[in-house]
């Protein structure tokens, strides 16, 4: 015989203002099977939980219903309290009389009647609850980190330092991402490569890190603790085991006119190439789209000159399966394509460049060896205009959000320009200067006060190239209230930070949500900023939103901490809400096996004593089952049921709302 206790929370005024909690408690006391009912101001408080624990013990309860807030809020709290009192935690249920009742209604009498109904429904359910045991699944203590920029490198190094294995997957041939392309970094102006390349080398050499460059994620299966990631290792045509990176091949390659991605198109590279002299791994790959041997079947110069015989034109893509317990997404960002701005020349003016191109011009390892030279004719620009918010904060043609890093890097650019071109004029057009961060505003002030950058508050309306080669920049000075025109030699557009276009594909593979702009969504914008809604998948860096280096690194370390926390336990506890097959009635029609979205149902052989198969039935793998209930609905012989949500329970819950049971008369009987 069931002995159910009902605990009604006032939630301060939140519930009690709209629901007559005393009346609800009195009504609950009369429900069949209920032996105890009480109401209390804050049931989740320590004394409230005491009350629950004491009632469970004193009244030898076989089930409990807490009528309070959403189970998402406090189900765990109360189930822990029940467990502490010696009750199986799955014998306690929540009736949501706050979000589903008091918060959304104003009529006190009707709300009270509805609260009583909600309690009645849960009492009916809890009477048929079975005590469930938590399911444990093993955790594969290997992390997959997707993206080899600074965020991915940092996450990989931190996880590896915690003693766990990491597979670091990078799409391009080298680690380093965008940071490897920067000249100096704000707000300290330290050289980007000097601080990054040691990390790249460390990641490549770390015994716990397996580096997979030129590799992309093809598909992802499994779940937290047991992901299976299929990686496409793209053909490189150079055997990494033989290649020493001597450089014979790329110095002899006859195809020399391919715009370098690393140098933002400001220099040319060969068909067999390494991204930069600091590339990690420091081995070339062949760009199959441009290689004469691979496109036209004749050339092979690199193979002839390679002293190690490392060139392999027959190399092919390879699919590699990686088992992992956790995944860190660190896919980074791209710059918005300013060719969408026709008024800024639509990308057709050579001396109107983006921030990365300026970084390469300013970089000692760049195409001009650090001298600021404009792309069209190599002349030193005497006046440079920097345009902030190019595409950012423009809902119409660009993106609605602020890209966050441009104010700082533009100040840095103006500063580097002043240091390199003495007597040069740097003009910055801005909407607002957003320089929140340690030492950040001081940095911008330094660019203005010490290095003489002219800051003009206003938007640029038009950029065009005059016949004499001058780049005309027209805009407004909204502080002075006048139109302005600047004759410039070069213009640098601070293009908006956007997610990578293929990030959405990856998100869909993983079931990770992304926002309207394509940035990955965190599980909670304030309290769970590195987790995704998918257990075991964490975020690091600008794939979640525009971020500078320190922020990306901080989030990467946080993602590593989450990963190591997950790996700290050898087994993972899971909610035991899984499907169960009745082997006596199962006809092995395989409908559930075909319908299961998690591939959690498999064949099970029933053997006789001699080991002969006498029947085959369906069987649910508790480790894989997510408790979605699809199998329950497709089973023709009603042989599958979901623990905690059996058909019987659900039907009785509905029946509890029938006209003769319910406090509210149904429409038909009124």
């Amino acid at each position, binding site marked *: 015989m069931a002995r159910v206790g009902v605990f009604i929370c006032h939630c301060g005024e939140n519930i009690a203002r709209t629901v007559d909690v005393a009346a609800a408690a009195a009504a609950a006391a009369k429900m069949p099977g209920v032996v105890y009912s009480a109401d209390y101001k804050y049931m989740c408080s320590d004394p409230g939980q005491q009350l629950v624990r004491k009632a469970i013990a004193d009244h030898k309860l076989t089930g409990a219903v807490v009528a309070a807030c959403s189970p998402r809020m406090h189900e765990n709290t109360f189930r822990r309290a029940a467990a502490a009192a010696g009750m199986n935690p799955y014998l306690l249920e929540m009736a949501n009389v706050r979000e589903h009742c008091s918060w959304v209604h104003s009529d006190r009498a009707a709300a009270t009647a509805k609260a009583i109904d909600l309690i009645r429904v849960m009492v009916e359910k809890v009477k048929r609850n079975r005590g469930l045991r938590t399911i444990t699944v093993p955790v594969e203590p290997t992390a997959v980190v997707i993206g080899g920029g600074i965020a991915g490198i940092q996450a990989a190094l931190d996880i590896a330092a915690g003693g766990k294995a990491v597979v670091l997957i990078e799409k391009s041939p080298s680690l380093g991402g965008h940071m490897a392309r920067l000249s100096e970094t704000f707000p300290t102006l330290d050289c980007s490569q000097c601080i990054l390349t040691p990390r790249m080398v460390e990641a490549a050499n770390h015994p716990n890190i397996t580096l997979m460059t030129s590799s992309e994620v093809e598909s992802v299966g499994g779940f937290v603790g047991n992901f299976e990631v299929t990686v496409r290792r793209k053909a490189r045509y150079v055997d990494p085991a033989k290649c020493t990176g001597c450089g014979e091949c790329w110095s002899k390659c006859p195809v020399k006119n391919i715009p370098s991605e690393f140098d933002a198109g400001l220099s040319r590279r060969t068909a067999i190439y390494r991204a930069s002299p600091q590339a990690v791994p420091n081995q070339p790959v062949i760009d199959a789209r441009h290689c004469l041997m691979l496109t036209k079947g004749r050339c092979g110069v690199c193979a002839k000159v390679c002293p190690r015989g490392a060139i392999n034109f027959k190399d092919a893509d390879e699919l590699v399966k990686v088992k992992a317990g956790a995944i860190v997404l660190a896919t980074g960002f791209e710059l918005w394509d300013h060719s969408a*701005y*026709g*008024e800024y020349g*639509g990308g*057709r003016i050579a001396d109107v460049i983006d921030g990365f191109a300026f970084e390469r011009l300013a970089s000692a390892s760049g195409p001009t060896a650090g001298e600021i030279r404009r792309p069209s004719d190599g002349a030193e620009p005497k006046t440079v205009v920097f345009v902030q918010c190019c595409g950012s904060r423009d809902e119409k043609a660009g993106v609605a959000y602020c890209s966050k890093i441009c104010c700082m890097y533009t100040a840095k650019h103006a500063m580097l320009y002043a240091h390199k071109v003495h007597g040069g004029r740097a003009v910055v057009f801005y909407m607002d200067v957003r320089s929140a961060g340690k030492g950040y505003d001081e940095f911008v002030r330094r660019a203005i006060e010490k290095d003489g950058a002219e800051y003009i508050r206003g938007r640029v309306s038009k950029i*065009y*190239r*005059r*016949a004499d080669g001058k780049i005309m920049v027209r805009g407004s000075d909204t502080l002075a209230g006048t139109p302005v025109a600047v004759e410039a030699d070069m213009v640098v557009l601070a293009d908006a930070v956007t997610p990578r276009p293929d990030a959405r594909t990856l998100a869909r593979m993983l079931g990770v949500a992304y926002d309207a702009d394509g940035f990955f969504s965190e599980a909670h914008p304030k309290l769970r900023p590195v987790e995704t809604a998918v257990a075991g998948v964490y975020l690091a860096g600008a794939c979640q939103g525009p971020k500078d280096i320190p922020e990306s690194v901080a989030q990467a370390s946080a993602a590593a901490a989450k990963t190591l926390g997950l790996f700290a336990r050898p087994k993972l506890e899971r909610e035991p809400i899984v499907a169960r097959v009745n082997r006596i009635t199962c006809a092995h029609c395989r409908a559930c096996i075909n319908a299961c979205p998690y591939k959690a149902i498999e064949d099970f052989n029933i053997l006789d004593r001699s080991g002969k198969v006498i029947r085959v039935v369906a069987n649910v793998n508790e480790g894989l089952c997510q408790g979605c209930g699809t199998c329950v609905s497709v089973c023709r012989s009603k042989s599958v049921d979901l623990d905690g949500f059996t058909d019987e329970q659900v039907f009785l819950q509905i029946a509890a709302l029938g006209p003769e049971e319910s406090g509210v008369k149904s429409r038909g009987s009124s």
Partner: protein
Amino acid sequence: MKSIGYYPGCALACSGIELDLSIRALSGLAGVELCEIADWNCCGASSAHSTGHELAVALPYRVLALAEAQGLTEILAPCASCFSRLKGTLVRLRRNPEMLERMAGLTGRACRNSVSVVNVVEYLGRLLKEGLAGKLTSPLKGVKVAAYYGCLLSRGEGIVEGEDAENPTGMEAAIQAAGCEAVPWNFATECCGGAFSLAKPEAVVDLSAAVLGDAEQAGAQMIVAGCPMCHSNLDMRQRAMSAAGRRTRPMPILYLSELLGLAAGIAPKTIGLDRHFTDAMSIAGRSA
């Protein structure tokens, strides 16, 4: 396209008569009948919408209602300003059905807003695609042309469709069909000074001279325009520009329809090429 409704507006009867002449000539050549809307009235232009919102909608509304009542489904408004007013009203009424009812009461004419409005660039583009291109027997080989859109043929959300307002390209195909080269230049959508031609002519001289100057620097031998207002500012004010020391060389300003008319071998006078303030007849000699 066998026929199309025709709304000439005021400009095509006076200052922009070349536009009317050349469109009629090309339409005749292409076998398209222009059905002028009977009893059409002023579109309101800038004057109406600086006087009152209702008036600015009511005037084009009456034209749309007349066209609809006369069984027209599509009308050509060659003047860019007329086009902007008519199409703008159409778009506005589509977004605001309440206003449609109010206008019916105000003008005493019902209208389902079923007529569509095309501008001169769209119309000529369609003629070319539907066979006119094959009839351009006297192309102006190698002439460098700056395509000038101004504001009303490049701007207006939902009004000028299929164009990047900051980088329109709609005239390019027609210019190439005429055998010319469309030069890249900077001031294709700059302001010519518009209706300040009378109130503040010095502003028009200043702005229009800048447009001509940029076209010249880009190597253009002439400018092709679609709007009678732009045309008169660029064409008529060249003498004032010279007087103000802003210009030295004359720059012929042709309507896109005049250029195509020349390429089609139509007599220059038939399309009104002799009616320009700045000599345009010299261009006629360039056609093969």
